[in-house]
């Protein structure tokens, strides 16, 4: 297939990419012992994207024979001409290559073995914790397989899998149902993960203990507070608070990051980057070496010692802002065009101890786990928090119920006083939504800062 795409790409009438792309996924979902989802899916096909007079034409179809390939190229050409832009300068010609196959070398688990993981876990949880109102268990996998060639000579293959196990428990409290979930897993296929009893038992015990304390806890007090963000939250902070604001398509639209390049936007303790490969330590939940425009991936320093240094680009935004693309153009499926996306985004670890951070707060909160998040052009971010504790006089107090934290990133990051010597990639990997969903890696250390909390307390 790669040879066919390379041959066709060399004959494209203008700059363009050809991509064969298939997503392979599986999902088992059990609720209270009832298997609600038990299946797999595959979605694949070919696409062509052509650049003409400053605009793109794109076409895709769910087959990969020569006739289909010729048809999508012709339709993409027609679409590019229909887009009808004005003449524009040429795009970057950096061309990546290589094969990056992260398929598991272990024997795949059978359908029976996968169901058995979920069934036995469900039985064990309900036997060990009989007071639960509900138990949800989801075991899922996703792999993105791509073959890409462009008219500048890029030619690459990749297969990038990851898998996640999610357990959610609910219990009845005095004022209603209280729920908590956690995620295990990350890079690789299901058979590459440690879902054995020895790994799961202490993990479940910790999850249940946090749930028990959360049920006995209360609403947090709305307003501005000193907080310690656990390293489990640092990734979503890097992604939502900074990463999105520094995507060059948002900058071109008017994001405040555009007014702050070269300026101090954070404490000198903050260094934040977006990385190719599997991140600076090679342990992220996601891998990328060549993006979906064929650009080889380079690391991007977004913030260095508190100073905003760079934005994230595709070929088009790099051309418009006079930068070099570093491999941030990514597409979710064969039907999707590449967009400016993050890859492995993280805050670099510092030298501070988590215990010192908690000890430094007289009245505030220790926030341990996040749910969903959102960014904004103003750099005002938010993310949900489903597990946390009060801090009173430097010690952890009662648990808090679900809340949301927010802040203006370029203000909040200046309030950072401590950056932890710990570091963690978000478990199970993260997904980001921006016209298309996309797999991302995100991580960082514990951080002490000041944010706004929602709540009725």
């Amino acid at each position: 297939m790669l040879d066919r795409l390379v041959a066709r790409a060399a004959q494209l009438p203008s700059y363009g990419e050809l991509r064969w792309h298939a997503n392979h996924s599986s999902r088992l979902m059990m609720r209270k012992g009832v298997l609600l989802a038990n299946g797999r899916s595959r979605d694949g096909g070919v696409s062509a994207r052509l650049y003409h007079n400053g605009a793109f034409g794109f076409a895709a179809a769910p087959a990969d024979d020569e006739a289909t390939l010729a048809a999508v190229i012709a339709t993409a050409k027609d679409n590019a001409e229909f887009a009808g832009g004005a003449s524009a300068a040429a795009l970057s010609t950096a061309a990546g290559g290589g094969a990056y196959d992260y398929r598991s070398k272990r024997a795949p688990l059978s359908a029976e073995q996968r169901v058995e993981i979920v069934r036995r876990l469900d039985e064990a949880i309900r036997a060990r914790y009989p007071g639960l109102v509900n138990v949800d268990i989801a075991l899922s996998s996703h792999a993105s397989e791509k073959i890409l060639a462009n008219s500048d000579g890029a030619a690459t293959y990749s297969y990038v899998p990851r898998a996640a196990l999610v357990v959610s428990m609910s219990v009845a409290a005095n004022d209603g149902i209280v729920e908590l979930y956690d995620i295990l897993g990350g890079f690789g296929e299901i058979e590459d993960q440690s879902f054995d009893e020895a790994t799961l038992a202490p993990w479940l015990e910790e999850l249940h203990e946090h749930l028990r304390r959360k049920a006995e806890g209360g609403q947090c007090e709305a307003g501005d507070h000193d907080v310690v963000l656990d390293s489990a939250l640092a990734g979503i902070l890097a992604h939502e608070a900074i990463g999105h604001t520094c995507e060059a398509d948002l900058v071109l639209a008017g994001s405040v990051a555009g007014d702050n390049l070269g300026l101090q936007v954070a404490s000198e303790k903050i260094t934040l980057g977006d990385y190719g490969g599997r991140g600076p330590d090679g342990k992220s939940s996601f891998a990328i070496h060549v993006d979906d425009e064929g650009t080889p991936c380079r690391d991007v320093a977004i913030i260095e010692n508190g100073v905003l240094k760079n934005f994230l680009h595709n070929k088009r935004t790099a051309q418009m802002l006079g930068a070099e693309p570093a491999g941030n153009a990514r597409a979710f499926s064969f039907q999707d065009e590449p967009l400016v996306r993050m890859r492995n985004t993280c805050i670099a670890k510092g030298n501070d101890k988590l215990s010192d951070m908690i000890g430094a707060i007289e009245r505030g909160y220790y926030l341990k786990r996040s749910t969903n998040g959102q960014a904004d052009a103003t750099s005002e971010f938010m993310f949900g928090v489903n597990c946390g504790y009060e801090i009173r006089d430097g010690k952890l107090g009662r648990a808090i119920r679900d809340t949301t934290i927010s802040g203006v990133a370029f203000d909040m990051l200046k309030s950072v006083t401590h950056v932890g010597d710990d570091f963690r990639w978000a478990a199970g990997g993260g997904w980001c939504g921006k016209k298309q969903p996309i797999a991302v890696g995100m991580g960082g250390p514990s951080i002490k800062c000041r944010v706004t909390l929602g709540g009725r307390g």
Partner: protein
Amino acid sequence: MSAPSNDFLDQILARAKDAGATAAQTLTSRMRYFEMEFDHRSVDLVRSTENETTTITLFRDGKRGSATLNGRQPEEVAAAIQAAATAAAAGVADPANDIADAPSLPPGDHGPAAPDRAAMRAQVDEFLASLPSRHPLLRLRDSLYTFTDQETEFANSRGLRQRERRGRHGYRAMFMAKDGPLTTSFNAVGGSSFSPFPSLYEAAGVGRLMAECERSLQRRPVAGKFVGDVIITPHCLTGLMPSIAGALSGQALLAGSSPYKDKRGERIASPLFSLDNAPRSEDFAEGSDFDEFGVPTRDLPIIEDGVLKDFLIGYFFSRKLGMPQTAGVRNSRVRPGETSLADMIAGVKRGILFSRFSGGAPNDNLDFSGIAKNSFYIEDGEVRHASSETMVSGNFQQLLQDIHAVSKEVVNFGDCAYPFVAASGVTISSK
């Protein structure tokens, strides 16, 4: 690409039986999609795609397994049938696992079969040409004018057959305002319609939001913390209603986590609030004639004058819970009230016009907290200023009870339709 056909589905059902299925069903969806993407300056992408997705579900001795593929390559179809059979064999038996027995409907045909691309392009060009004079500070990105032609076909081994086709136009505008160093939050609105939108300034109520966006450059936090009123806009409700519908779903009833699990026939909302599920309504371009089990959909009241009339229960959960099936598809419609938006605002002592919720997903108890984005502070019946860094916290169970006005004005998004809803008792706070 060939159109869906009974032959293709019948072949799948026959091969499923050969693979050991005691029952089987298959759902095929063929889609042709056309999109123009533009920012505030020009069209930057024209995209057209085709796809055909088929989900095959096999039942074997009370167990269920499924596989989804796209295209019709014979080896992929064979692999999917085998994968579904293997999954079913490995599954967990449940008496609720079965295919449906329901009447086959005449084929449905809704909306135009193809887009008028030139006319759509002319609309976008007119919109972009007039934007600088109408909204000089507005910046758009990733805005879309689309057309989707979708054929869906269902068959099961009990002889149930369904087919429908829907052709619809879609629109999404994502925008912000910028004036020198002043920047507003992004706002986004989307909707769908069988017909082309008469104006890209008025589709899905976007005109009001664009005007509000330009008035939001100067904004500040709402002072302090107080319990006040919120006027929830139709656009904000699109983000909030799925949580309430989720709490009324069969999934939540099975979990035992729904606060409404024992509330059928009881008042769970203000008498001013009525919610319908309306998948058959011709108002909704994104409705459905039948659900994923091939069961014909129907419109019915869910909450009527504040009283919970029915849950949203699909085929599997109706069997599992021993309750009647009411819904396999959700298209929510909150019935309009008798108050104008202007009168609602005039009636607020202190509160906000709550335009977008950006917050953590509400929990099972329907507690919520998040930022009130693109929103405005109201005091003594007047909109005072755009808000920033302002959070709202409350509980949807209580909020539904505390509704004191529902507007005459309604926005139809193509898959749901909502009025403005005014409620009291929400905690509003800032830094």
